[in-house]
C-alpha cells in the first residue's frame, strides 16, 4: 500500500474514525488492528518474523525485569559488604547473559536475511581465490518490510529494561502495538517505548485544532514526496545507472539532485507520519532539523535521521567508549597526549563501531562500509585538527560568526555529504571508483550551456513544478532555521493559507498526472 494512494487515505481515515469512536481505554487496540492490517497488506507471511521478534523481546524483557526486582531483594537481604558485592556481581552476570541471548535471538533472522548474501558472497569469493570453480549465485531471500526498524526497536527496548530506564510492559498486545506501530515501522523514527507509550496508551480526545495541524503537515509531506522526490527519481537513476554514457558535470548534478531527492523523500515521509500521529494525539519524535544548514559533517548527522544517530549513540557509542577497553584507551591516551587528545581517542575508538554499524545498517555491501568510514574519517579529522583550523582562521582573519563563513561551511558540508554518496549509491566499489574517475576525466563544463541535458527524462512542466516546490521547501527550512516559521504560520491570514494548500494540492495532482513513479520510500529499503 503506497502512502500516496487512495487505499492508504481510506485506511488512515478509517483508523482515525475508529480511534475516536471507541472508548479511550481501547483506543490502542484500534492501532493494534491497524498495524496488523497495514503489515499484512505488504505480505501476510512476513508478519511471522515480526511476531517472533516481538515475543522474544517481550519475554526477554520480562525476565530481565524479574531479575531486576529479585536481584535488588537479594542484595538488600545479603549480610556484610562482601556478600552484597557477590550478590551484585551475580545479578549483573545473569542480566548480561539474559540480555545477550535475547538480543542475539531478536537479531538472528534479521542478520541471516539482511547479511546472509553478503557474508556468504564474501566467503565464497575468498574460497574462489584457491579454487576458481567455486561460485555463489546468492540466496533468493527478501528482507521483510521494516525488519531493520522493528529489530532495532526491540533491541532498544530490551537494553532499556536491562538498564532499568523503565519497567517491562506486562501486556504483550500493548508492547506489540508499539513494536508494529506502522507509522514508525517502515522507515523510523526510532522511538523509545517509555516515550511513545505516554501518548499511545493514554487515551486521547479528538481535537479539531490537531486535525487541521496534522492534515496540513500530511499535505506538506505528500507535496515533498510527490512534487520533488518522485519526479527526480528517473533523472537520478538514468544518469547514475549509466554513468559511463554521461559527462562528469551531469554526474555531479545527479548527486546534488540525489541529496535533495533523498531529503524530500525521507523528510516528506516523516511529515506525513508525524501529521497522522498528531491527529491521533500521539507524539512521534522529529527526525530532521534542516540538515542542509549543518556547518560540519558531525552537525549534519545531528540534524539528519536524528533518532538513528541517537540510537547508535545510546546503544553503541556509549557502551563501546565506556567499556573496560574504551576506558583503558582513554586513560592511556590522556597520559600520553594530554586531556584533549585523550578525550578524543576513546571517542574515535567508539566511533569505529558506530560507523561500521551505521554503514552496514544502511546496506549489506562494501560500498556502505566505505561510505560509513568516509564519514568517520572526515568527522575525526575535523575534531583532531580543530585547533589548527582555528589558528588558520585567525591568521586569515576569518570570523566564525560571519554570514559568508557560515555559508561556505554549509556548502562545504553539502558537497562532502553528496560526495560520500558516490559510494552509498554505487552497486559496488568498482562502479563507485569508475564514477569518480568519470567526473575527473570527462567533466565538460561547457555542457552548462545545455540545461536540458541535466534533467534527463523529465518534462519541462515537471522541472518547473519541481523547482518551485524545492524553492518552497528551502524557504520553509530557512524560516525554521531562523526561528520565524511558527510566527509566519500564526500571522498568515486564513485565505492565504487556504490558497497555499490549494496550490500544493493542484501541484500534487499535476505531478501525479505527468509522472507515474510514485510509490516506495527510499529509506524503507534499509
Amino acid at each position: 500500500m503506497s502512502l500516496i494512494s487512495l487505499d492508504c487515505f481510506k485506511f488512515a481515515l478509517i483508523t482515525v474514525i475508529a480511534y475516536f469512536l471507541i472508548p479511550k481505554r481501547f483506543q490502542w487496540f484500534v492501532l493494534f488492528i491497524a498495524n496488523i492490517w497495514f503489515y499484512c497488506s505488504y505480505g501476510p507471511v512476513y508478519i511471522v518474523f515480526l511476531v517472533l521478534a516481538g515475543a522474544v523481546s517481550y519475554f526477554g524483557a520480562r525476565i530481565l525485569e524479574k531479575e531486576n526486582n529479585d536481584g535488588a531483594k537479594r542484595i538488600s537481604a545479603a549480610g556484610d559488604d562482601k556478600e552484597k558485592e557477590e550478590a551484585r556481581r551475580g545479578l549483573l552476570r545473569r542480566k548480561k547473559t539474559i540480555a545477550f541471548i535475547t538480543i542475539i535471538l531478536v537479531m538472528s533472522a534479521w542478520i541471516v536475511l539482511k547479511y546472509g548474501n553478503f557474508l556468504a558472497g564474501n566467503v565464497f569469493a575468498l574460497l574462489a581465490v584457491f579454487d576458481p570453480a567455486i561460485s555463489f549465485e546468492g540466496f533468493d531471500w527478501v528482507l521483510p518490510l521494516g525488519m531493520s526498524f522493528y529489530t532495532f526497536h526491540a533491541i532498544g527496548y530490551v537494553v532499556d529494561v536491562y538498564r532499568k530506564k523503565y519497567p517491562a510492559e506486562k501486556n504483550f498486545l500493548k508492547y506489540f502495538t508499539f513494536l508494529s506501530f506502522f507509522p514508525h515501522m517502515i522507515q523510523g523514527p526510532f522511538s523509545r517505548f517509555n516515550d511513545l507509550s505516554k501518548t499511545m496508551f493514554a487515551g486521547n480526545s479528538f481535537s479539531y485544532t490537531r486535525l487541521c495541524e496534522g492534515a496540513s503537515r500530511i499535505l506538506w509531506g505528500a507535496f515533498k514526496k510527490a512534487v520533488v522526490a518522485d519526479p527526480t527519481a528517473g533523472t537520478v537513476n538514468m544518469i547514475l545507472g549509466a554513468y559511463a554514457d554521461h559527462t562528469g558535470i551531469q554526474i555531479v548534478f545527479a548527486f546534488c539532485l540525489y541529496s535533495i531527492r533523498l531529503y524530500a523523500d525521507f523528510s516528506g515521509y516523516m511529515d506525513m507520519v508525524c501529521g497522522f500521529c498528531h491527529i491521533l494525539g500521539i507524539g512521534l519524535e522529529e527526525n530532521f532539523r534542516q540538515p542542509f544548514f549543518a556547518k560540519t559533517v558531525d552537525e549534519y548527522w545531528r540534524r539528519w535521521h536524528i533518532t538513528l544517530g541517537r540510537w547508535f549513540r545510546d546503544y553503541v557509542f556509549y557502551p563501546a567508549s565506556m567499556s573496560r577497553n574504551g576506558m583503558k584507551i582513554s586513560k592511556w591516551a590522556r597520559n600520553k597526549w594530554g586531556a584533549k587528545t585523550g578525550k578524543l581517542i576513546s571517542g574515535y575508538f567508539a566511533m569505529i563501531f558506530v560507523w561500521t554499524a551505521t554503514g552496514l545498517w544502511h546496506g549489506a555491501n562494501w560500498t556502505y562500509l566505505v561510505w560509513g568510514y568516509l564519514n568517520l574519517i572526515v568527522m575525526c579529522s575535523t575534531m583532531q585538527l580543530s585547533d589548527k583550523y582555528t589558528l588558520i582562521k585567525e591568521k586569515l582573519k576569518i570570523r566564525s560568526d560571519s554570514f559568508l563563513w557560515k555559508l561556505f561551511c554549509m556548502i562545504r558540508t553539502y558537497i562532502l555529504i553528496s560526495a560520500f554518496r558516490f559510494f552509498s549509491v554505487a552497486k559496488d566499489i568498482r562502479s563507485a571508483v569508475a564514477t569518480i574517475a568519470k567526473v575527473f576525466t570527462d567533466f565538460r563544463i561547457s555542457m552548462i550551456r545545455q540545461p536540458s541535458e541535466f534533467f534527463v527524462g523529465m518534462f519541462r512542466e515537471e522541472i518547473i513544478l519541481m523547482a518551485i516546490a524545492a524553492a518552497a521547501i528551502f524557504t520553509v527550512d530557512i524560516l525554521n532555521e531562523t526561528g520565524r516559521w511558527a510566527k509566519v504560520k500564526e500571522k498568515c491570514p486564513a485565505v492565504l493559507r487556504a490558497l497555499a494548500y490549494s496550490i500544493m494540492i493542484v501541484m500534487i495532482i499535476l505531478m501525479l498526472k505527468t509522472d507515474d513513479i510514485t510509490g516506495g520510500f527510499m529509506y524503507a529499503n534499509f
Partner: protein
Amino acid sequence: MEQLMKILKDIRPDVDFENATDLIDSEILDSFDIISIVSEVNDAFGVEINVDDLLPENFNSAEALYELIKKMQAG
C-alpha cells in the same frame, strides 16, 4: 565539589557549570564531553559510573553529577 568543578572546567572551559541546569537537555555537552567527564570522575573519585548511569537527570548540572558521585561513594 571544587574538585569536580575543576574537572568540568578543564574539559569544557566555555561552559558555566555553576549555573547551568540543562547541560544534556540543551545539548551543551556532547557525547565526547560525557565520556571524558566519566573517565576523569571515575579516576578522581574512585567510583565506577557506567553506561547505565548516563541519564539526563545525572548530568544536567554539576550539582546532579556531584550527587551521583556521593551516592556511589556511599555504596
